[in-house]
């Protein structure tokens, strides 16, 4: 079943990809143009996707409700980390992200807290101060 879905998805993706390629034109100096290579990729992809949808071989099994919930929460946390890194600053946001992820993965609360409390400023020191890659220590919300 999942193969059928995946095949259909790839077919639609490739079809959209090929369709969009029609808009890419350059009227000078380039015999092949920017649209041909996407078609060379997209058309076989449509065929393969279709074949997967018609003759599936594999069925993926997903985890139970608890697992799915944890995965969704983790994705939410990762997106939040990405979005809040600048506003909150590196150290607070990393602290929260490391703590959250480690608790989700089953860390004993005290140890998780300790890991996050050491790692967040430690990584800042390593990157910003030792390697010279500038990072926001405190975010734009606090200044």
């Amino acid at each position, binding site marked *: 079943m999942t193969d059928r879905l995946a095949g259909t998805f790839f077919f639609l993706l490739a079809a959209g990809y090929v369709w969009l390629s029609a808009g890419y034109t*350059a009227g000078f100096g380039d015999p092949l143009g920017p649209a041909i290579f996407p078609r060379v990729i997209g058309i076989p992809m449509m065929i393969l996707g279709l074949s997967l949808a018609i003759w599936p071989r594999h069925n993926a099994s997903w985890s139970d409700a608890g697992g799915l919930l944890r995965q969704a929460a983790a994705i939410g946390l990762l997106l939040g980390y990405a979005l809040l890194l600048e506003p909150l600053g590196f150290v607070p946001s990393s602290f929260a992200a490391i703590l959250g992820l480690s608790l989700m993965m089953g860390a004993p609360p005290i140890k998780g807290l300790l890991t996050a409390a050491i790692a967040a*400023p430690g990584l800042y020191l390593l990157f910003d101060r030792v390697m010279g890659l500038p990072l926001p220590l405190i975010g734009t919300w606090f200044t």
Partner: protein
Amino acid sequence: MIWKMTKLKAVGLASAMLFAAPAMATECIAPADPGGGWDFTCREVGRILSSEGLVDGNVQVTNMPGGVGAVAFANVAGKRADDAELLVATSTVGVTQIAQGKYPAGIDTMRWLAMLGADVGVIAVDADSPYQTLDELMAALKEDVTSVATAGSTGAGGWDHIRLMMLAQAAGIEDIAAIRWVQFDGGSPAVTQMMGGQVGVVSTDMGEIKGFIESGDIRVLAVLADEPISAFPDLPTAVSQGYDVTGYNWRGFYTGGDVSDEDYAAWVERLQKLYDSDAWKEVATNSGLEPIWRGGDEFAAYVAEQEQQMAEISRQIGVIQ
């Protein structure tokens, strides 16, 4: 010794490092990955600014790659338009992008500070090439525009391509868009492919391919400068051969559009002092740049004129409608 430090001291030192007020106020954004031309402009100029005492502390270099400078441009326009401690490195390449509408806004969004030097365009052929002079090459192209495959480090519509188109136009070639153009990932790959016989002519910046000129592997038909350049005074310019075309790739800076006149003037003055320093002259010549100064309003006017020129030729070859 470090290993003997007690844990307490280590924690103290670490927190001191963590919360020590950053001594750097000035920031230079390099709108590219580390290692590129814009990155080096920021790093070198930043280094000299602080070693000459023109700014307090160090200049922090921030890499903000994306969209050939468009990401940094949008970021400064949106978030830091009034930040008086901010420099953004740019060059002719950035202006080409603006002229072709590939940045989120036009040149008047920013305040253009100064250019500190320029790389010079060259037109080169292989040492074994039948073309001895620019005239011979242009004559061949005039007879049949597809007779020679030309190449450079930018795509069609990029600065390397446009410079060649300007020359072809000056030579009276009409169907310039039909000239075969091949893009390579840099000037030296283009030159080696020319030495391997894949293409006939290379148009690119001189800095990157100096080594091949010195070794005699390639022949320079024209230097796109007003005057012969100091590193190779014997190489002929296009101007001296009767083609009124120059093609500099300058390196300079802009800052946000809302920076006050006072701060703007102060930056122009600091950059002029930097330009006059021996340290900059040395860095510039080392990296293959001709030190050329244009600052303040003069520079802003120059950028505006260049943008006009680029937009026009881009329209002629069909890069923009």
